[in-house]
């Protein structure tokens, strides 16, 4: 999306489409009246009625897309909250004589309350099982509504009468449009706020989101609840023009409507589902009028076409248009797939200065303050002891390497330190705080950054956004549902991007950069989080010799300039001995020895361990 058109033209086009959409929505009643004049068979009232239903469907679908498009959750229970909204209005009116407008004001809160409670339950499972759990919840709510004859009216549904002022189709249309507009504005604010940025980062990469300090579960529950709140408004508006709530609104298959509509319009844009809603309503009424059974087939064919023609997943829909566009028109400025930063990082590196401060630090380190202290840490998987009774200390300002043959427990140790796994026993003290067994997002906030063995960034966000969102999370701004995330920390992120040699590429999607540059982004994210200790899990794995040199120069420079403490594991011994000041050797889950690189190099046990492995490898074991 970001590279579709030059910025200015893209913005103008986007706002043009938005304006046209709103203008069209505002003009539906007069247009319908005009059409009736030209073509007396077309009833203006019916057309306005359809317009109202399209507005409500748009609101419902956009609220669904808050989950689907912005966090990647597939819920089968969303229709239930829509139904709860409608029933809230109906039951308050019928049983308690509450005016329907008051009911409409209450509907979102009742729906949100039901959404919050059921969302807490649904969150106990992830991905597919989350979806299946929402299916069970949805059917449960449906059965309750369907069977509670006395309270809900059972399969007869529950009817209301709207006040006289709203019985006129045009008035009701504008009333609905006003409510929908307010809701869209609120949702749009959320989407581009720091809170929206947190949600986007969860969709992009859950692991990285947690590693920048975002409590993934809490944010998912929040958006689930917010989505059910707006579904409640949509349900409340539904009953104003249908004057009836019925149990099928809650049945699990009812979720197909917002999903299909979101797909039709595109899940990656905020207003996409609104366009989808209008297309859907038009299709529904042109096709199903003449061919009542064919509508399902057409709908199915459309969904199939969208799903199968967008190989990057549904969230990648605009890329289809980009690809189609490129197929028909080879544009001149079609550039840059993997780009290289051309060694900027190295050119900026002042060797003499770095060496000088290096010398000072090397002495300080071993007498210095302990930043991370690991005490008798163990982790068992069934009978396997992956990490056993490991104790070690990382001094402030040190560059500490952990080496050892495959299976020595290095990666497990890292996972224990950053909270991906909980230790079976032992303690981890960081900067005076006990962080043993804390979840990743909490540990990230205490000041431990991590570059994973498999590069973990937000690939579709720009380089700058990667850093901005980390800064937002670090500053605790991501709870804000207002403000514009992309304008916050703009300069700071740019500065940091420049510091790691990626300033020129700050506006590119991070996933388009070369492997080495993506590594640099990951390290920069740690810096954006203000991490005092940075863990690097095989920082040069899979890199060419050139990339390795470049990456390690960058790491050393940043560590020096920014007084970072490094803890890294690495197989490439030249990297270890050129960078580390302290080396710990692990073997079969235990610490074998520790010392300066020279001491370790000449330790006979270490030689035996590595030789032993070499012999085994030679034997083909």
């Amino acid at each position, binding site marked *: 999306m970001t590279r579709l058109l030059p910025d200015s033209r893209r913005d103008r086009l986007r706002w043009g489409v938005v304006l046209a959409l709103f203008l069209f929505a505002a003009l539906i009643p007069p247009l319908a009246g005009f059409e009736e004049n030209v073509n007396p068979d077309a009833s203006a009232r019916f057309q306005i009625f359809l317009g109202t239903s399209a507005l409500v469907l748009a609101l419902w679908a956009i609220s669904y897309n808050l989950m*689907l498009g912005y966090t*990647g959750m*597939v819920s089968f229970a969303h229709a239930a909250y829509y139904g709860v909204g409608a029933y809230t209005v109906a039951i308050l009116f019928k049983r308690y004589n509450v005016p329907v407008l008051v009911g409409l004001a209450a509907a979102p809160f009742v729906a949100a309350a039901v959404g919050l409670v059921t969302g807490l*339950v649904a969150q*106990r*499972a992830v*991905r*597919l*099982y989350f*979806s*299946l*759990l929402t*299916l*069970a*919840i949805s*059917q*449960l709510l449906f*059965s*309750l509504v369907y*069977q*509670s*004859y006395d309270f809900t009216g059972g399969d007869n549904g529950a009817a209301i009468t709207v006040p006289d002022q709203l019985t006129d189709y045009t008035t009701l249309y504008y009333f609905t449009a006003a409510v929908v507009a307010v809701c869209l504005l609120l949702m749009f604010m959320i989407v581009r706020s720091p809170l929206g940025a947190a949600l986007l980062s969860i969709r992009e990469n859950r692991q990285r989101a947690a590693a920048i300090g975002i409590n993934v579960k809490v944010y998912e529950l929040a958006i689930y609840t917010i989505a059910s709140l707006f579904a409640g408004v949509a349900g409340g508006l539904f009953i104003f023009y249908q004057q009836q709530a019925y149990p099928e609104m809650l*049945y*699990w*298959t009812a979720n*197909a409507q917002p*999903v299909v509509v979101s*797909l039709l319009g595109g899940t990656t844009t905020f207003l996409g589902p609104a366009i989808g809603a209008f297309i859907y309503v038009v299709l529904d009424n042109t096709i199903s009028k003449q061919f*009542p*059974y*064919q*509508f*399902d*087939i057409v*709908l*199915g*064919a*459309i*969904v*199939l076409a969208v*799903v*199968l023609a967008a*190989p990057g*997943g*549904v969230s990648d829909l605009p890329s289809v248009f980009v690809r189609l566009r490129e197929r028909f028109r080879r544009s001149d400025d079609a550039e840059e797939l993997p780009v290289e930063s051309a060694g900027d990082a190295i050119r900026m590196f002042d060797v003499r200065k770095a060496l000088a401060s290096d010398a000072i630090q090397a002495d300080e380190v071993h007498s210095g303050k302990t930043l991370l202290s690991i005490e008798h840490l163990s982790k068992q998987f069934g009978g396997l002891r992956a990490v056993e009774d490991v104790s070690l200390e990382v001094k402030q300002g040190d560059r500490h390497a952990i080496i050892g043959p495959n299976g020595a427990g290095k990666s497990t140790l890292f996972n224990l330190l950053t909270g991906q796994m909980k230790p079976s026993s032992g303690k981890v003290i960081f900067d005076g705080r006990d962080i043993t067994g804390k979840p990743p997002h909490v540990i990230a906030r205490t000041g431990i950054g991590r570059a994973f063995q498999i590069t973990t960034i937000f690939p579709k966000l720009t380089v700058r956004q990667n850093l901005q969102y980390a800064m937002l999370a670090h500053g605790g701004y991501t709870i804000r549902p207002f403000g514009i995330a992309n304008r916050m920390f703009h300069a700071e992120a740019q500065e940091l991007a420049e510091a790691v040699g990626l300033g020129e590429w700050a506006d590119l999607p991070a996933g388009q950069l070369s492997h080495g540059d993506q590594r640099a982004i990951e390290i920069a994210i740690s810096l954006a989080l203000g991490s005092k200790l940075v863990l690097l899990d095989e920082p040069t794995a899979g890199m060419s010799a050139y990339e390795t040199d470049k990456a390690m120069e960058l790491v050393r420079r940043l560590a020096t300039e920014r007084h970072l403490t490094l803890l890294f594991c690495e197989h490439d011994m030249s990297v270890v001995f050129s960078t580390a000041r302290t080396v710990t050797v692990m073997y079969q889950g235990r610490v074998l020895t520790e010392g300066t690189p020279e001491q370790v190099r000449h330790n006979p046990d270490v030689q035996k361990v590595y030789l032993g492995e070499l012999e085994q490898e030679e034997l083909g074991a």
Partner: protein
Amino acid sequence: MTPGQLLLFAVGGLSNAAYLFIVAAGLSLVFGALRVINMAHGSLYMIAAFVTVVIANQIGAGLGFWAGLLVAVAVTGAIGGIIEVLVLRRVYGREHLVQLLGTYAVSLVVAGGVRITFGANYRTVLSPIPGHIDVGGYSYASYSLFMIAAAIVIAVGVWAMLYRTNLGRNIRAAVADPDLLNATGVNVTRLYTTVFVIGAGLAGLGGAIVAPSQAISSSIDTDVLVLAFAISVIGGLGSIVGSGIGAVIVGMVISFGLVIPATNPYALAFVFIIMTAVLIVRPRGLFGRAES
């Protein structure tokens, strides 16, 4: 509740379990091997039910039903093959959302097709095994007992297919590591088609067998699908034994839930309460493997 009533409702529960097991086993088999939740599974069941009813009513009860059953299974198996080749092959290994939507789209197309072909009215067919057996003052429909027996035979058959044949060995290997299996020279692409055809055939068998015991309409696809989901989740997606246990639990809950006055309206709600509880306490179900 007297012992006689207890037996009556238990048999009722088992005959529910019988057809639900056959359908859920197909869903679970496909999920186990292909890692795809087939939203069109209920549609195949519905097609088979209509085909059976139409053929049985043409030829006449008895022979007509058995002919209808065979044709229905063949038709659903063939449609399953077409769906696998045209749709599923493109969604393997992609997000669950894409798989759910792709197969859901198929179910929409099938639902429309069924309504055009067979109309929206209810259809019924006479039981091919009429009569009943009286035990302890209550009578049991022979056909219900046949359904239970048929489910047991199919359970044994599926088990034997999985654990006693080359095909079954390959399927189990594909569940564990499809790439490795491919490297050993097995055509995994064709194996997947075969598994999906078998799964579709089981949905068809379930639909054919249920036809004489229920009124068939064009909305039975989603009703059975959601119950098959519940069963597979309770028993563990991918586990045939789990489908059996899950089907018995769901069948019994529906049967007893409906006859106990206090719970009568909420029989189905109980099914979903159990499903919710299982997903919370043990997401992989009673017999499912942990997802890697």
